[in-house]
């Protein structure tokens, strides 16, 4: 049981509290979902539970927090470690040892668990999270999703009463995310574990939650309640909920299964609607080729990561590159921008080899926002960062700042980039890359850690850029984003292209990549809520 009594948190050098007067009780055995916009204080709320705030962050905490009768004011995180397992936003940053097995055992060693018990629990956890094949791997060699699973596993081995997770699925592909969530649910059911998790991708998590805590941000009071009640009024909602709103259903479905059962009437109606959306997703194969990838093979050391990739990317296309964790998506993007040199084959961006271009010429040809978007930033403040970009790319002063206010108007120019939330930092990096207006824009996991509002700003900006004839490539696990945005989808598996075609065709043909609406309304070829709205509109108008 976790009890918050009138808790307020103020960080040093800030006048306004991040969280104000929070009173909250989380009973045992509940799966509790924390939602809210970027930078609203979700992470702070989670870190209060095991005492990382204030023992590690500094700042003042008023009120009291009790976890199973222990006060976090007097117990530092290490004295709570047997009760609370914690997995941070960047799992790789928390690895202490160097192989998977040792990492799983680390917390148990600190706890003094007997060796034979440790052996058994490590094996159980390996099975539970599907890590058996990785047991001897070096932690540095893991892909994002694998690392996330190892981090969850190492928090589980001590058999804590409470598990706290900060965005556990944001780096995972849909299948891996389902796996992790399913095993979390099993833990809740079988062991009575209390799980508190923050997540932006509601469509993945909300169906498993017993309770939702909405953190509105700026010190506003929290809203706590049943998932269905909260979702009905929440400004952020998964596509099935939006579907229910659009179709005026009385109940609020939380999962695809609920939605499918409520959708019988709607499906019947829409079968008669002339679905003419295909005309807007025109294939762009008649426009000029901008990026020409010919027989490219890339290897890291002795391991070949990309095998003979051939691709032509056309002007004005928005391309989603999908595939499981470690399939070679990031490598493909960094090869296109010239950071990796293929040992065979060639990459041409508008006829030039990107690896030999000078950096100044490169930013006008092709831009990449890497997975660790913060790497791109190095100035002391957001404002300086924007001015530096203008100077580097010889733009009219103010271009980058204007771009930023389009994507994320709430960012204060005086903030240090390092103090921004994950989502805001990504928005800033995007603005920096978009400002010189490159003809090809590559985005590696652009929606990781973004709330729905930031995401819709991003979609707007990208669609505008594509209309101007820019080519956009997204490596993403976010099927909803791909459905909404991409005209073409490429699926990579193990370094090879296994599917390449119009988004509608590719993602409806595979259950793994299908978005929620497509699943709920199958076999209709509708992908997004806006598709459904358009179809309903066409019904009302006489043909």
């Amino acid at each position, binding site marked *: 049981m976790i009890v918050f009594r009138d808790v307020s948190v103020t960080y040093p050098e800030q006048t306004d509290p991040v969280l104000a007067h929070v009173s909250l009780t989380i009973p045992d055995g509940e799966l509790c979902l924390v939602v809210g916009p970027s930078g609203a204080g979700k992470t702070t709320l989670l870190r209060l539970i095991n005492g990382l705030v204030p023992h590690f962050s500094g700042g003042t905490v008023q009120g009291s927090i009790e976890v199973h009768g222990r006060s976090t004011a007097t117990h530092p995180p290490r004295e709570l470690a047997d009760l609370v397992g914690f997995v941070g936003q960047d799992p790789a940053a928390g690895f*202490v040892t160097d192989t998977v097995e040792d990492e799983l055992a680390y917390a148990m060693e*600190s706890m003094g*668990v007997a060796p034979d018990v*440790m052996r058994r629990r490590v094996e159980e956890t390996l099975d539970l999270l599907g890590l058996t094949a990785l047991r001897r791997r070096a932690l540095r060699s893991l892909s994002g999703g694998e690392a996330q699973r190892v981090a969850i596993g190492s928090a589980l081995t001590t058999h804590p009463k409470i598990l706290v997770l900060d965005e556990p699925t944001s780096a995972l592909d849909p299948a891996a995310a389902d796996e992790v969530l399913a095993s979390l649910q099993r833990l809740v059911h079988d062991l009575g574990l209390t799980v508190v998790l923050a997540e932006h991708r509601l469509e993945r998590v909300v169906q498993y939650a017993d309770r939702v805590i909405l953190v509105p941000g700026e010190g506003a009071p929290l809203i706590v309640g049943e998932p269905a009640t909260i979702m009905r009024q929440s400004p952020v909602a998964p596509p099935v909920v939006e579907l229910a709103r659009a179709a005026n259903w009385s109940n609020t479905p939380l999962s695809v299964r609920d939605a499918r059962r409520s959708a019988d009437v709607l499906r019947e109606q829409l079968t008669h609607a002339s679905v003419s959306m295909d005309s807007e997703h025109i294939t762009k194969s008649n426009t000029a080729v901008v990026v020409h990838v010919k027989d490219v093979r890339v290897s890291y050391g002795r391991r070949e990561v990309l095998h003979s990739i051939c691709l032509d990317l056309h002007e004005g296309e928005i391309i989603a590159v999908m595939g499981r964790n470690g399939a070679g998506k990031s490598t493909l993007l960094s090869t296109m921008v010239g950071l990796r040199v293929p040992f065979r084959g060639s990459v041409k961006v508008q006829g030039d080899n990107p690896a030999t271009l000078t950096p100044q010429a490169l930013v006008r040809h092709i831009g990449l926002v890497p997975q660790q978007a913060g790497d791109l930033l190095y100035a002391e403040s957001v404002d300086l960062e924007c001015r530096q970009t203008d100077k580097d790319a010889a733009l009219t002063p103010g271009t980058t700042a204007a771009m930023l206010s389009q994507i994320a108007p709430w960012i204060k120019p005086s903030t240090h980039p390092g103090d921004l939330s994950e989502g805001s930092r990504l928005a800033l990096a995007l603005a920096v890359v978009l400002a010189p207006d490159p003809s090809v824009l590559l985005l590696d996991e652009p929606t990781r850690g973004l709330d729905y509002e930031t995401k819709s700003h991003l979609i707007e900006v990208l669609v505008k850029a594509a209309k101007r004839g820019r080519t956009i490539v997204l490596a993403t696990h976010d099927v909803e984003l791909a459905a909404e945005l991409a005209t073409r989808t490429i699926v990579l598996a193990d370094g090879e292209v296994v599917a390449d075609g119009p988004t509608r065709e590719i993602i409806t043909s595979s259950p793994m990549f299908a978005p929620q609406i497509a699943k709920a309304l199958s076999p209709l070829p509708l992908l997004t809520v806006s598709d459904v709205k358009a179809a309903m509109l066409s019904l009302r108008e006489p043909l």
Partner: protein
Amino acid sequence: MWALGLAAAASRTSNPLILLVIIAITALIVAFRAQHAPWARAYSSALVLAAIVVSIRVIFGLLVGLPLGTHELFSLPQLPVPDWAPGIRIGGSITIEQLLSALFDGMRLGTIIVCIGAANALSSPLRLLKSVPSAVYELGVAIVVAMSLVPTLISDIARVREARHLRGRSISGPSDVIGLIGPVLDGSLRRSLDLAAAMDSRGYGRTAGIDRKIRRVTNLLVVTALVALVLGIYGFLTGNSTSWVAPTMLIVGLATGVGSLILSGQRTARSRYRPDVWAIPEWSVSISGWLAAGSLWWVLAHNASALEPSFNPLSWPPLPLLVVAGLAVATIAALMTPPIPSDQSMPMREESSVNA
């Protein structure tokens, strides 16, 4: 342990041939046994470091030092030295003897560095941690985390450079390189905080209700033991200090060390997951390393001139057979032991070689 034995051997000789043999042995073993892991690069960086040390030693030996020998190579302008510092000279004539003695002396230090580099390359620092007694475990973790900072820093620099490139800046002048330092240090600081938070939330440093007094006494004993051991070993290896200091210190160090281990043994807060077994192969490897050192000691005691090359008259240094035999044993033992199961992080792709 094996590498430390070789390092001990190296510290007692300045015979260039023996030193070269030792370096060759470590290179051989590293080439055979090094794993594909971040720490495996330690050996090459140790080589570079050793080369730098040797050249610095030679330059200083040539420019500053006592005049030695008669075979003049060439002459540099000599700086006048104030009267209160007799016997020291800056510049002046340079002799072969001087050059060689500086070179050999530098090589001795260089070889020790290479040996330690080899130790680093052959096993992960974290594996070493498993053999550390629990009293000093927390100190050990701190050191290991600090050591792992270096490879992370290097990969950070690469990442920041790539990011700069993506933003349209080229890195050419020294000012750009200095500009890299800020974000890299900033990043590593943030990461250390993250790591510290993660370790804390996983129970690192739990004290599981042990008596405060006992804990203080243990810590005091550990520190005393370490200081005494270090002093003792230093005295033993350099052979400079008066005869009774080194053994006494070693004995004091060992006694306090054992005492602290017994005390900390009561502290059952930690346990080990699959501790490394210290079996016959491990013993034979470390003994063989020390055998090499022992052979050197023996030769030193009976025939000291063989290990210190003579400069007067200049002659080709002898290569004592016994020492070579000792080193050969070290090599063979290290090669004969079964390899550590390597991690499977780099699966080979068979089909790719067929296609190529």
